[in-house]
């Protein structure tokens, strides 16, 4: 079978991210975005003058990519403001790789910055300002009045159903937080760096049953950027190129009450498509970066992407595969559970996957990593997007 035209057409050539153990980072969102782009371009050995495409999801103003390009003083010929929450960046990579493959753009920057922790401390909003919605939305009419805390309550309903159908336990979910924290102990920028036990997770306050506080992601400031170009051009740049081998998207609902099946996400679609384009399968993957807004998010991703059969995520994670030295190293920076989570975590999945494939993981490097998966989730298990990445050896 001939290669899919997307496979290996584009590469990620520059990355940057910023987070701090304090949970806060300095600067305004536009300043931080500019800093991330500067660093990611420098990482690639490119300059702003090379950039002809921008992708951004952050709705700071009325049209995010117009305002970004104006601030940067550039005139792109390709633009993307896809907003699916935390999976936006994986979708940006899919769109950018396709655009690059077709010659619609040559150098694309994808950027993200958010400061919910600082905003909250300044009393200027944090989550509240973001949650504001004008007019009559289906959520305000049919879900919000019933008192479900979001986002954790929506994930809790999915966990409740998974437990009912498959016998999954709180201890098994806690294992995900425990193994992710082991990685965070090796990341000096991680917000939470002390190891934890299953008992610690179960003893932490209940946020929305069956999810405890330590089943839930952080609220921190954070930012990042990635730069993509054609594989051909990538070979002449500063760092080893990381090829986009495949990408897929699948979204199933917006409100949790509309999720067709609470135990199967759009990852079953996005993962299937991404692996098919890559010509690879789950057993080929050396390291996974899985959106971990909550422990149940990881469990569902492992099943939907095919790392274990549907319903067997609980026993699968209980064996400890996700930890350093495990059979399926996952969330090697400490993830949204322990590293950083500014609200839309998907950018950090890409940055960490690229660093692992370049061998830049330092103490948390997965030896010999050639294939990585970055799997984003947006909304309340609503929008999934999977990117399969590989070293040049995988082409």
């Amino acid at each position, binding site marked *: 079978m001939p290669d899919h035209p997307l496979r290996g057409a584009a590469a990620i050539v520059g990355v940057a991210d910023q987070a701090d153990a304090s949970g806060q980072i300095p600067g305004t969102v536009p300043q931080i975005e500019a800093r991330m782009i500067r660093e990611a371009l420098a990482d690639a050995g490119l300059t702003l003058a090379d950039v002809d495409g921008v992708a951004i999801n952050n709705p700071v103003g009325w049209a995010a990519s117009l305002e970004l390009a104006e601030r940067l003083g550039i005139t792109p010929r390709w633009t993307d403001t896809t907003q699916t929450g935390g999976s936006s960046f994986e979708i940006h990579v899919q769109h950018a790789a396709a655009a690059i493959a077709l010659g619609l753009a040559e150098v694309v920057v994808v950027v993200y910055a958010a400061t919910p922790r600082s905003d909250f401390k300044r009393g200027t909003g944090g989550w509240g300002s973001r949650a504001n919605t004008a007019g009559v939305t289906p959520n305000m009419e049919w879900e*919000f009045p*019933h008192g479900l805390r979001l986002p954790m309550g929506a994930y809790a309903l999915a966990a409740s*159903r998974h437990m*009912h159908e498959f016998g999954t336990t709180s201890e098994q979910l806690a294992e995900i937080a425990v193994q992710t924290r082991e990685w965070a102990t090796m990341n000096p920028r991680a917000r939470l760096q002390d190891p934890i036990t299953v008992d610690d997770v179960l003893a932490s306050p209940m946020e*929305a049953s069956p999810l405890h506080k330590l089943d839930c992601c952080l609220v921190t400031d954070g930012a990042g950027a990635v730069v993509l170009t054609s594989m051909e051009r990538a070979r002449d740049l500063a760092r080893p190129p990381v090829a986009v081998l495949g990408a897929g998207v699948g979204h199933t609902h917006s409100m949790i*009450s509309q999720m067709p099946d609470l135990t199967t996400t759009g990852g079953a679609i996005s993962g299937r498509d991404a692996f098919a384009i890559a010509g690879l399968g789950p057993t080929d993957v050396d390291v996974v970066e899985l959106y971990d807004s909550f422990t149940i998010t990881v469990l569902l991703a492992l099943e939907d992407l095919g790392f274990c059969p549907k319903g067997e995520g609980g026993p699968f994670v209980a064996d400890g595969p996700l930890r350093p030295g495990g059979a399926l190293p996952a969330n090697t920076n400490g993830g949204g559970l322990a590293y950083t989570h500014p609200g839309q975590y998907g950018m950090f999945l890409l940055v960490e996957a690229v660093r692992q494939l370049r061998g830049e993981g330092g103490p948390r490097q997965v030896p010999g990593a050639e294939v990585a998966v970055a799997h984003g989730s947006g909304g309340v298990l609503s929008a999934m997007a999977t990117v399969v990445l590989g070293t040049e050896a995988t082409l």
Partner: protein
Amino acid sequence: MAAERPRPERFSPPQSDAGAPFWEASRDRRLTLPWCTDCDAPHWYPRGFCPTCLSDAIEWRDAEPEGTVHAVSVQPKPNHPGLADRAPYAVVLVDLVDGVRMMLQCSSAGDPGAIAVGDAVRVGWEALPDGRHLPTAEVTGR
């Protein structure tokens, strides 16, 4: 002397045009569902057209106020100050016998933590200040 803080009101849902017939029937504590007469099937939530065939031949019919808990989560903290005095409470997704799934708050007395997937529920009604009623779920058996 500290000023007495007014008790926060329970959040009153806005009413969309598509949802208006539901809220009107709720004034009489009557559960109704939008049916597509082309598909001869109900759907939830109301959006003014059928999400299966996109027909706008929608008719509102009385529905069976019975169902089963599909998923449950107990909220130790409220999502709105107006619910503070009733936390912890359970929020459930209910599969109604007519075949639609609805999010409801459980109004049954007793330990919300005891509510389980598979429990039988009946739709009840909580009065809203404007005369409408909000549907709730009362556990009737397990």
